[in-house]
Structure formats: structure tokens, C-alpha cells
């Protein structure tokens, strides 16, 4: 005669239910915020890519990267980094200030481990020296700056030249197909599932897609870009090179 139902299987107390509901609600809100952010970024990226042609951006980015690499003044490097951080952000690329700070700090810290130069301070076992610090800062911002210049200049629709370019384009097409694979991959039958995936993707691509034609251009690729985009790009490139010679001019 089991009279008492054990506590555990009874309906959860109202307090617990409220907490669970609150948690679910906050999770839903977080997911919603992420979605909104992603939508905003896609919109920005679409506008950016409609304004600038991908190959223009790639060439400009390459030139700017070179000027950036040769830049001697660390202060100017930091300025360029900040500029492109926000430039890449407004172009719809995902930027994470936390990651950037972490990576930069890591680089600076690693450089501080080998003391060089005038002693500035002692933090526990670590001696902070001027040259090591400046070197670390320079390297850190060079590293990060290049990343953001890249993010602003390498865009989705970029078509690489030549046969190699068409192979890369095919690879991206296959990539899209693999991502969209409808079947599921289960852990227990992992190998045969993956095998099936590969076979299906390969066979489904067997019919269309001639390799040589760089077909399937990005939707906005054929659209004519405004002349302003070229002017802006040219200005940015000139700006980067001007900053390159600025330190020697000022001396």
C-alpha cells in the first residue's frame, strides 16, 4: 500500500518552476539578441559588399597591409589598428574586443618575459623593461592590425584568378553543399554516415558545375560599383602610405 508518493516525482514547487521559466526566458532573450546582432551584421556586410567590389578591396587591403608592415612608428600603428577595427566592424565583420585584448596582452606578456632595456617596474618575479615593452606593444598591434585590415578587405565574393581560383570556387560550392547536408551523422554509425555524406555530395555535384567557368558569381558581383568606392579605396591606400613617410617628414 504505497500511500506517499516520493517527493521527487511530485510536480516541482511553484518556486522552482518560476526559476526554470526565468532561466528559459533569459536564454531565449540571449538567443534573440544574438540573432539580432547577426542580422545587423549581415545587413552592414551586404551594404559594404554592394558598395565595394571584392577585388578592389583585396588589392587595396594588400597595399595597405604592406604599408602597415613597414610602418615604424608604433603610435601610428596603434592608430591604424583602431581605425581598421572600427572599419571592419562597420563592414559587418564580427569583432571581439575581449579576444583582441587577450591576444594583445598575451603577446606583450610573452615579450616582457625576456627583459631588455631600461627597467621600469618590477611586478613580482617579472621585470618590466622599456624596450621589451615597446617591442611587445609593437608586435601585438602589428598582429592585430593586420587581422583587421584583412577582415575589411577579404570579402565573400572574392574570386581568385586563374585555374587555382576556379578550384577554390568549386571548393566553396562543395562546402555549401556539405553544410546543407540533410542526412544526419550519428556517433554510432559515424564512419558509414560520413561515407554516405561524401558519396552523396560528390554524386550530386557530378552533373552540373563545369570546372573551368567561374560560374555562380556572387549576386552583387556583376553590378557596377559607384566610382566613389574606388576613390575611397584609393584615399585609404594613400593615407596608409602617407602615414608611412610621416615620421621621417616630421624629423
Amino acid at each position, binding site marked *: 500500500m504505497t500511500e506517499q508518493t516520493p517527493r521527487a516525482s511530485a510536480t516541482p514547487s511553484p518556486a522552482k518552476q518560476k526559476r526554470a521559466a526565468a532561466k528559459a526566458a533569459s536564454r531565449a532573450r540571449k538567443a534573440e539578441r544574438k540573432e539580432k546582432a547577426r542580422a545587423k551584421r549581415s545587413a552592414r556586410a551586404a551594404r559594404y559588399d554592394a558598395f565595394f567590389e571584392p577585388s578592389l578591396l583585396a588589392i587595396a587591403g594588400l597595399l595597405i597591409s604592406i604599408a602597415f608592415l613597414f610602418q615604424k612608428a608604433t603610435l601610428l600603428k596603434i592608430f591604424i589598428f583602431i581605425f581598421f577595427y572600427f572599419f571592419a566592424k562597420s563592414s559587418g565583420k564580427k569583432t571581439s574586443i575581449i579576444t583582441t585584448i587577450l591576444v594583445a596582452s598575451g603577446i606583450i606578456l610573452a615579450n616582457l*618575459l*625576456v*627583459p*631588455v*632595456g*631600461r*627597467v621600469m617596474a618590477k611586478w613580482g*618575479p*617579472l*621585470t618590466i*623593461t622599456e624596450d621589451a615593452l615597446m617591442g611587445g606593444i609593437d608586435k601585438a598591434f602589428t598582429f592585430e592590425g593586420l587581422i583587421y585590415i584583412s577582415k575589411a578587405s577579404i570579402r565573400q565574393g572574392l574570386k581568385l584568378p586563374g585555374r587555382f581560383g576556379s578550384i577554390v570556387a568549386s571548393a566553396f560550392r562543395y562546402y555549401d553543399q556539405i553544410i546543407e547536408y540533410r542526412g544526419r551523422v550519428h556517433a554510432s554509425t559515424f564512419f*558509414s554516415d560520413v561515407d554516405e555524406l561524401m558519396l552523396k555530395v560528390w554524386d550530386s555535384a557530378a552533373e552540373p558545375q563545369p570546372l573551368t567557368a567561374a560560374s555562380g558569381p556572387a549576386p552583387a558581383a556583376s553590378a557596377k560599383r559607384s566610382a566613389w568606392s574606388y576613390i575611397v579605396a584609393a584615399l585609404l591606400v594613400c593615407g596608409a602610405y602617407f602615414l608611412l613617410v610621416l615620421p621621417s617628414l616630421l624629423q
Partner: protein
Amino acid sequence: MSEKPKIRIKVLDCVIIAAAILAIAFSCLTVYGKGNAEPEVKISSQGGDYIYPLKDERRLQIEGPLGVTVVHIHDGSVQIEDSPCPNRTCVAAGAISRPGQWVACMPNQVFISIEGSSNEKSVDAGVY
């Protein structure tokens, strides 16, 4: 299709794994071991303290009350090349190259020594 093919480990696989483990152990010892501190050149002056690795070539200008003392680090040794002091005994003192050694220009308040590593407890400098 439920037969699982046997994975056969071959001879060289074991050789490679063994070699890899050795390499890892070796790198652990060299990198994390104590005996590997790089010697550093420490310079104290009126203008502040400086640290430089002994192995890189450098020519430094250290400011003192009398003027600039030129310190040259090269080929794993340090020496005072020039100094504004009257006797210039420091210049004549020659080069030092081992931890514990020191050379100084007293009038210009420049003191140079070589130490094991600043990021660990340093052994008391011995004077020879």
C-alpha cells in the same frame, strides 16, 4: 557493413611515437629546466637601471653626471669603450663575460655586471 576493419599499427608508428616522446621530454627539460637562464648584462646608473641580454650586439650610451659612458656588448662580453671620467680606469679594465663579474665607472656612477637571470633568484655576485 558492420564489420570493423582492424587497424594495424606498423613498425615505424611505434618508432615515431617513441621518438616523439623523447623529443617532448627533451624539450621539457631544456625549456623548463633551471640550468638554462641566459646571462644578462645589468647596468645601474644615475638615469636608471638597464638590463640587456649578453648575446646580442649592442652599443649603449649611458648617461651620468659627468657625461655619456659608452658600453659595448659583443661576442658575449661587455666592456666600457669610452667614458668622461678623468682616469679612464674603467676603459682600461677591459671586458667581462661571465656571471658575477663586474666593471664600473665610479666618477660617472655607472655600474655594470653580468648576472644569470633576473627572473629568478640570483646568486650573490662574487668579486674576484
